[in-house]
C-alpha cells in the first residue's frame, strides 16, 4: 500500500486527525528511508494517540516484525521492555515449544544494544520501538530514556526509531544532563466541537435516524463540555443516556419531532448523570437496572423520585453504635483545636453558650481563613484525647463491657483512622481521622448527634 493510500485510509478512520497522520507518515516515509532517532507523540488523554499509532503501524508494516508496541505499565522493568521489543522484532512468540522463553535475555542496556546489533544486521527497514505511557520511563533510572533516544547512535547506526506516546509535554522529560537531543514532536490536540460531534455520531445505534441522534449528541455536548473535555467520557454518557431519551418515543408519549419535550422528560436523568454516572459512583449495569425500573411506570413523579434515590448517596458505612461515636470523636479531635476542648466538651456546661462567648472574642478575625483546619486536612491527635471526647459526646454512660480499644483497632484496620505514630509504640499512639465531613454528617444523623454544634471554624 502506498503512503498516499494509507494516509487516506487512516484519515477516514480517524476524523480530525489528518494533520497528525500526515505528519507521522511523512516522518516515517518509505520503509527504508532514514528516520529521526526519536518521535515524541503527546497530547491529552482521549485524543487518539494510541489508536492512531497502533493502526498506523499495523497497516504500515502488516507483517509486524518492524515495530514493537510496548506499554510501559505492562513492562514495568527495563528487562521486560527489552525482551518484548526483541521478541516483536524477530517474530518470536513464547510458546510451549520453546518453553515460554524469550528471544534473548537482556539484563541491561549493553546486552540490549548488542542483541539489537545482531538482530538488525542486514535489515534495511527502519525498526520502530513504540512505547506507550512513556512518562513512566522517567522513573526507571535516569539513563534509560536517554539511551533509548540515542539508540541509533549507540547501536552504531542501526536504523532504530523510538516512538514515545505520553500525555505530558517534552519539557517534563528533558533529562537534566542534556544528553538527549529534543525529538521530533507530534502534538495530538483536543478535538474541536465539530470533530467531537463527528466522532460521537459514529456511535449512532442501528435503526435510529442519524439526524435525530446528532441533535441529541449536540445537546449532551452542550451540557457536559464545560466540565469534561474527554471524548471517552462523553461517549459513555451518550451511550447511557440515549435509551432514556428515546424511550418516550417508543412508549408513544412523544414523537421524534418534539425535541424540547423529549429533552424535558429526560432532564432528571441528566442531573443524575452529571454526578453519579460521570463519577462512576454507580456502575453501568446498575444504572441500566435502576433506570429501567424508573421508567416502567410512566408517572413523571415516580421517575423523579427514583432518580432522586439513585442520586442519593447510600453510604455503605454500617458501623456498630459505639464505633460511630468513636469515629465522630476522632473527627472532632482531628479538626478542632485542642485548646477549645474544655469549652466544647466539658460536662455541666451548656456548650453552645460558652462557645459563643470565647470563640467570638478570641478568634473572630481568623474565622473562615485560608488556613483553617477544614482546608488543611486532619491533624494527628493522641488517642487519649479522642477517648475523652468520646465519653463526653456520648449521652449515656458507656457499658464497661464494650471494648473500646478493640474498636479503635478495627477502625484503624478499616483505614477510617490512620496511625501516624511508629508501629511498635504502645503508649502515646497518635492517629488521624480519614473520613470526609459528608460521611461524618450522615453518620451523626443516624445516631442523632448534632455535629455542627461541636465543629469549630467550619464553613
Amino acid at each position, binding site marked *: 500500500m502506498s503512503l498516499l493510500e494509507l494516509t487516506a485510509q487512516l484519515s477516514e478512520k480517524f476524523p480530525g486527525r489528518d494533520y497528525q497522520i500526515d505528519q507521522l507518515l511523512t516522518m516515517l516515509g518509505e520503509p527504508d528511508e532514514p528516520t529521526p532517532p526519536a518521535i515524541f507523540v503527546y497530547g491529552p488523554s482521549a485524543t487518539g494517540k494510541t489508536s492512531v499509532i497502533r493502526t498506523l503501524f499495523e497497516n504500515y508494516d502488516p507483517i509486524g516484525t518492524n515495530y514493537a508496541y510496548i506499554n510501559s505499565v505492562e513492562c514495568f522493568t527495563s528487562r521486560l521492555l527489552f525482551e518484548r521489543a526483541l521478541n516483536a522484532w524477530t517474530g518470536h512468540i513464547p510458546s510451549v515449544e520453546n518453553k515460554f522463553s524469550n528471544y534473548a535475555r537482556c539484563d541491561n542496556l*549493553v546486552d540490549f544494544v548488542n542483541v539489537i546489533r545482531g538482530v538488525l544486521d542486514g535489515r534495511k527497514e527502519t525498526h520502530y520501538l513504540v512505547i506507550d505511557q512513556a512518562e513512566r520511563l522517567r522513573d526507571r533510572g535516569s*539513563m534509560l530514556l536517554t539511551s533509548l533516544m540515542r539508540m541509533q547512535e549507540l547501536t552504531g547506526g542501526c536504523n532504530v526509531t523510538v516512538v514515545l506516546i505520553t500525555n505530558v509535554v517534552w519539557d517534563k522529560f528533558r533529562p*537534566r544532563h542534556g*544528553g538527549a537531543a529534543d525529538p521530533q514532536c507530534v502534538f495530538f490536540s483536543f478535538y474541536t466541537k465539530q470533530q467531537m460531534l463527528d466522532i460521537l455520531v459514529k456511535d449512532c445505534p442501528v435503526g435510529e435516524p442519524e439526524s435525530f441522534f446528532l441533535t441529541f449528541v449536540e445537546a449532551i455536548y452542550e451540557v457536559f463540555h464545560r466540565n469534561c473535555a*474527554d471524548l471517552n467520557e462523553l461517549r459513555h454518557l451518550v451511550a447511557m443516556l440515549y435509551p432514556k431519551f428515546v424511550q418516550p418515543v417508543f412508549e408513544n408519549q412523544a414523537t421524534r419531532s418534539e425535541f424540547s419535550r423529549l429533552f424535558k422528560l429526560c432532564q432528571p436523568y441528566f442531573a443524575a448523570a452529571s454526578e453519579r454516572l460521570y463519577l462512576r459512583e454507580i456502575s453501568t449495569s446498575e444504572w441500566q437496572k435502576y433506570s429501567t425500573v424508573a421508567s416502567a411506570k410512566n408517572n413523571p413523579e415516580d421517575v423523579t423520585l427514583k432518580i432522586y434515590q439513585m442520586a442519593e448517596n447510600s453510604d455503605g458505612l454500617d458501623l456498630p453504635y459505639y464505633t460511630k461515636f468513636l469515629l465522630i470523636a476522632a473527627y472532632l479531635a482531628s479538626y478542632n483545636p485542642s485548646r477549645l476542648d474544655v469549652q466544647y466538651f466539658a460536662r455541666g456546661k451548656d456548650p453552645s453558650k460558652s462557645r459563643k462567648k470565647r470563640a467570638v472574642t478570641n478568634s473572630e478575625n481568623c474565622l473562615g481563613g485560608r488556613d483553617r483546619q477544614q482546608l488543611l486536612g486532619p491533624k494527628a491527635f493522641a488517642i487519649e484525647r479522642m477517648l475523652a471526647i468520646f465519653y463526653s459526646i456520648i449521652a449515656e454512660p458507656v457499658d464497661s463491657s464494650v471494648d473500646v480499644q478493640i474498636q479503635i483497632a478495627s477502625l484503624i484496620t478499616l483505614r477510617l483512622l490512620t496511625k501516624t505514630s511508629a508501629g511498635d509504640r504502645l503508649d502515646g499512639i497518635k492517629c488521624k481521622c480519614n473520613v470526609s465531613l459528608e460521611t461524618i454528617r450522615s453518620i451523626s444523623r443516624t445516631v442523632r448527634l448534632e455535629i455542627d454544634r461541636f465543629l469549630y471554624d467550619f464553613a
Partner: protein
Amino acid sequence: MPARRKTLSQTHMQMDVDVDNSVDISRAKKAILNRLNGHAPLPALVGLDGPLDSVYSLLNRTVSSAEGNTALLIGPRGSGKSTIVQRSLDMLKQKHDTDTDIDVDSSSVSKYHIVRLSGFVHTNDKIALRDIARQLLIKQDLENILIGSFADAFTYILNLMRSSDDEKSMPPVLFILEEFDLLAQHPKQSLLYTLFDIAQSQQTPIAVLGITARIDVMDLLEKRVKSRFSHRQIHVSNAKALEDFVDIARVALSIDDNEHRVTNAFAESFNRNVSAILTTDFVASFISDIFDFGKDARLLLRTFVYAANKLSNEHPYLQLAHVKTAIARETASAKMQILESISLLEVCLIISMKSLVQSGSSKYNFEMIYNEYKTFMSRHMLATAGGGAMKVYKKPVALKAFETLVELEIVRPALSSALGSDGSAGTSGRNDLLAGSTQGSRAPKEYRMVQMMLEPGQVLDLVAKRFDIPAVIRRWAQQ
C-alpha cells in the same frame, strides 16, 4: 525561490517533466535525511578544523607510531564533538586502508582496534569490561577472570590480544569514551585509572579519548587518576558567528553531484534553492533566534527534516511553506497548546490556584483550591442573582477535573522541603499524587499539598487566548 534567474527557471521547467529526475530526488532526499537525522556526518565541518586536526593527529600517532595518548574533548551539547571523532576515525580508516593496499603481506586482520564506551549504557566497570572484551573480539569465557580486580582482568584481556598476534608488539587500541563524566562516577574510577595508567606506561599503545560536555570534568577525577592523565584538553565551541551557524544548515542541506550520483544540473538548482530558502527573511530571523538563544545546531537541523521528508516528484526542491510549518511547530509552546483546550472547570481551578499564589501561599491542596472556587462562585451568584449560565460544580466533579490537571502535570505534588533533595524529585517525575498512598500516615489526596507549574502571567495568557470563557471569569483572572 525568489532569487532565480530566467534562464535557470527554464531548465527547472524542463527538469520537472524529466522522468529520471525521480531517481535524483530520492537520492538527494536520502542523503539529506541521513545527515539531518544524524545517521551520516556532515560533509564538511564548519569552524571545527582546529579540534579536528588535534584529534586526528593524536589518534594517528597512536596508530602509526605506537604512542600512548590521553586527551579530553570538551564542548557543549550539539557542538560537533562526536562528528569530529567520527570524522577522524574515518580519515584514519582511509589512511590505513591505503596503507594495507601497499603492503599486502602484513596479513593482520586489522591494524588497530576501536573500543567505544558510553557512560549512558556502561553503568559499571564490570559491564564495561565485558563489552571491551566483546569489542576486541575475544570469544573466551570471561566469568572466571571477572572475579579479580579490574586492573588484573584488563591486563589479562590485553595480553590475550598480544598473544593472538604473532609479533611481540600488540595492535594499537583506540578507546573512545563518550559521556566521560558519567564514567568518572563509577566507584573508585578503576576503569579510568587502569586506562590512563596503561596509556602512560607506554608499554601498550593505546589512546584514550574522553568526550564530555562538562567543563569541570577535571574536578571529578580522583588525584591518582588525574596524575596519570596527560592533561591534554581539546575544546570545541559552538559556532562563533551567525554566518558559520547558517553555513551548518547550508552544508547539511546541499548535495554534491559526484558524491550522490545526481545530475549536475539538478544538484546545482537544488543547492541554489537551499540558499534561497536560507536567505528568506522568515527563515533567517528564525535561525538568528536559535543562534541568539542557544546556538543549538541540532534544533537548526531538526527544523528542516519535515521539508526534506516532503521531497517527492511534486516537490523536487525544499519548499519554503514546509519549512515554515516546521518552524511554527518548533516555536509553539507545548504547554499552552494543551492548556488551550482543557475544560472550563479546569480553567477555573487554575485561576483559583493563581489567586492562591497571589495571596501568598506557595503550597495549597485541593480543599483550598475548591474553597477559593466556591467563594468566587457564590460571590458571583449573589451579584448576578441566579448566576446566569454558570453552574457551581460539586466537589467530586471538581476533584475529577483536578486529577486531569495532575495527570497532565500542570499540577505537581509540592516538595516536602523548599529545596528538596537536590531537585531529584523533580527529575524522577514520580507522580504519586494519584497513586494510592503506600504509607498509612499520608493524608487523603484532597489534602496533599500541590504546586501549580504555571506562572500567573501564563494564566493570563491562557485566559486571553480562549474565547469561550465568560466575562466574569475573565475579570476574576485579571484581579
